């Protein structure tokens, strides 16, 4: 069904998971997650990372049991055809929504920092063909984009260390000054930045010896956790908590202080480089959504891609202004939270029971 040519090695799961998790979130999550845990919120990031690892484990347990091993097969097995297809469609819509959120948020950053008068639809006309070009062919291309989307922007991580010279250790002392409840509350906010990996449920059959790739998925998540924790820690060392309340994109503030003999205002360069982190996000979601719809209803992959990209274009062009983008972000994160931490465990349990029961019957 899926040709061997189009399958990728297990190691690529690391990049697929990381690429889907790291995105626009990295620019401003610091000032969101400190709502409950304050200067200890960087610990919450690590807790969130561990929780996500748990969800990845659950997903792998389900995926391993099915030969075709993707969400379409699991849904059909668990709920039967009609209900299964309905839930799969909802999942596809969720993926599409994630793509819209990421893209729209990135465009908003561009509007705020670089081009205040950017015409969103015109800008999208430049982007949509690129997305189509990436997702319309083999999955390999998407993986390639994800791979480069992790490796290349990794240089941005180094840029963060510029601000270490202005760090004030008092900003994060005393460590563990908050209750466990507060830490966990902050973790529930931090989890939002890890959410992209649900595409795993779709690309699983495209991995060579997929069963053995689980460790790479956890490594990928580990890398993401490390990046987020480092960014968070450095931000908290640099800003004090009251300052953080007044900035939206704390990471951009960290870049701002970087000066080189040929480059002032590093954040312009940073935002441009960030595109290589946004691209894997969007194309992976869009590819996964397209693939899900194609698998469920048996339409042509390219046509579905065109239709979904059309929806992406229209919705991204409609939602404008800070309020619109915030609304999108909030609803997406609520849906995501429910999906990952309520729906996936429930699905796991039902799936588990179904398997046991049918095994006994046969």
């Amino acid at each position, binding site marked *: 069904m899926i040709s061997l040519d189009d399958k*990728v*090695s297990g*190691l690529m799961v690391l990049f697929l998971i990381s690429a889907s998790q790291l995105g626009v979130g990295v620019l401003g999550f610091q000032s969101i997650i400190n709502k409950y845990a304050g200067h200890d919120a960087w610990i919450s990031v690590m807790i969130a990372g561990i929780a996500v690892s748990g969800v990845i484990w659950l997903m792998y347990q389900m995926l391993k049991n099915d030969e075709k091993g993707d969400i379409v097969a699991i849904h059909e097995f668990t709920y039967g055809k009609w209900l299964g297809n309905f839930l799969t469609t909802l999942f596809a819509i969720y993926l599409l929504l994630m793509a819209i959120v990421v893209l729209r948020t990135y465009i908003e950053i*561009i509007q705020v920092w*670089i*081009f205040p008068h950017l015409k969103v639809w015109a*800008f999208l006309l*430049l*982007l949509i063909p*690129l997305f189509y*070009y*990436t997702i319309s*062919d*083999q999955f*390999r*291309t998407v*993986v*390639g*984009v994800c*791979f*480069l989307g992790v490796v290349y922007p990794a240089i941005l991580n180094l840029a963060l260390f510029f601000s270490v010279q202005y760090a004030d250790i008092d900003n994060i002392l005393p460590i563990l000054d908050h209750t466990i409840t507060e830490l966990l509350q902050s973790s529930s906010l931090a989890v939002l930045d890890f959410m992209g990996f649900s595409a795993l449920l779709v690309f699983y059959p495209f991995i060579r010896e997929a069963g053995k790739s689980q460790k790479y998925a956890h490594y990928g998540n580990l890398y993401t956790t490390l990046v987020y924790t480092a960014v968070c820690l450095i931000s908290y060392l640099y800003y004090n908590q009251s300052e953080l309340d007044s900035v939206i994109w704390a990471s951009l503030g960290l870049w701002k202080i970087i*000066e*080189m*003999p*040929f*480059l*002032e*205002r*590093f954040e*312009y*360069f940073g*935002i*441009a*480089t960030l*595109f*290589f982190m946004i*691209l894997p996000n969007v194309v992976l979601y869009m590819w996964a959504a397209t693939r899900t719809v194609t698998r469920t209803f048996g339409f042509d992959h390219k046509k579905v891609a065109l239709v979904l990209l059309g929806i992406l274009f229209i919705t991204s062009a409609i939602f404008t202004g800070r309020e619109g983008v915030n609304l999108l972000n909030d609803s997406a994160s609520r849906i995501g939270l429910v999906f990952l931490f309520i729906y996936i465990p429930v699905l796991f349990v039902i799936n588990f029971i179904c398997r046991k029961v049918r095994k006994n019957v046969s």
Partner: protein
Amino acid sequence: MNKKTSQKKIQRDFEKLLRELKQKDAFIHYQREHETGPIHLGYLKTAIDTDKLEKYIMPRLQEYMYQNLNELKDHIPFTKTELTDDADQIPDKLVKSFVFIYMANVSPSYLLIPLPLDEKRQVSVPEVEFSVVGPKEAFVEDIDTNLNLVRKRLAIPELNVKKLRVGTITKTDVAVVSIAGIADEDNVKTAVQRIKDVDIDQVVDSSFIQQTIADNKNSPFPQLLDTERPDRIASILVEGKVAIFVNGSPHVLLGPTTLIEFFSAFEDYFLNWLTASSFRLIRLIAVFFSILITPLYVAVLTHHFEIVPQTMLTTLVNSRMQVPFPPIIEALVLEFAIELLREAGARLPTKIGQTIGIVGGIVIGTAAVEAGITSNVLLILVALAALGSFTTPVYKMSNTIRLIRFPLIIVASVYGLIGLAISIAYIMVHLLRLTSLGRPFFAPIFPFRFADFKDALIRLPFSMQNKRPFQVRPSKVKRPVANENDKLRDSR
């Protein structure tokens, strides 16, 4: 009785043939009486080597005793002679450098002797891929000479040469060469199959094949490497790749190749690995510089001059003070001027071309700055970018590099650095999708193959080149290293 009528028919056919052939200017015809009857000899003047005819055929025709053409044939010191009764194929054979001898009343009645004119260029020094050290032989137009140049270096029975004919009219000889037991059979099959599938009336040069068997024909990137160095072909065949020779072309194609291979000069292997790696890195940096510097200038000066530090901004502003155009026009004008100079230099004979280059470059450049049409900073950048594109060893790739700069400049002027990032992403995705003979073109970067980096961005010492590149899926992966004893001590 039957034999007699058929002899009469042959005689009639021959007379008809002779009448037709005599219409042609180049047709030469001799007739001579012999004890069995008249003997005719005919050929086309421009198609054959007349020296050989005078020297070897004519004397034998007169001196020896023979009763039929079979006996005569034994006296003639040429192989590939043919005997026939069929008059219809004679005109075709004449064009292909044959001489015919007709003898009446015997069967077979035609003897065909090939006397091709061997006109070929001497093997000379490589001009496109010149190297200071290393072998100084380059391919010529003749396919047999070219194959011989490679055989000389690879005198092994495993050298597989598969000959094909391409071109409905030109019927050009094409040879697919690989080393059995090292090259992947699939790669050879893909190459042979694609060449067989080519439907074209003429193949004048290997680039015709290059374009018709390319994986993506609409890509600006060449997907097969071409080289004029027999030493390079030999070396790459040993790596497990496939070479495609085309008669009439001094350039031989190689596949499957990768993007990075286009930036490795063969001279890299003649220098020690540190020097070679540094030069290769310089070449790669030059390529990035060449592609990005003008778009960056346009992006920064159109949209984000705040990212330029104050001291540098003063220089930029001073140089641009007189210029009445926006950066995009300024850049396009200059890039166009450089392309103009290059194109003029390429079309003109070498000596005039050089003059044009110097006069055009210096005079126009200086005048343009003085007249205030362009800023001298941009002039420097554009000239450096052009220089950078010329460091690419493969001519076709350096053309591509100059070409893809233009869309980047335009997008950069509209969307600044973001636009630049997006256009780079377009190129990146395109490269990810490209394949060469069905193998990923962007390897070893993606699919990521750490082991293949030993001969990609840098060239590590021979002692570490102990595995053939995974890209070509060689049948035999391991290869002997330079010197087992020196393995730890490394290269000289």
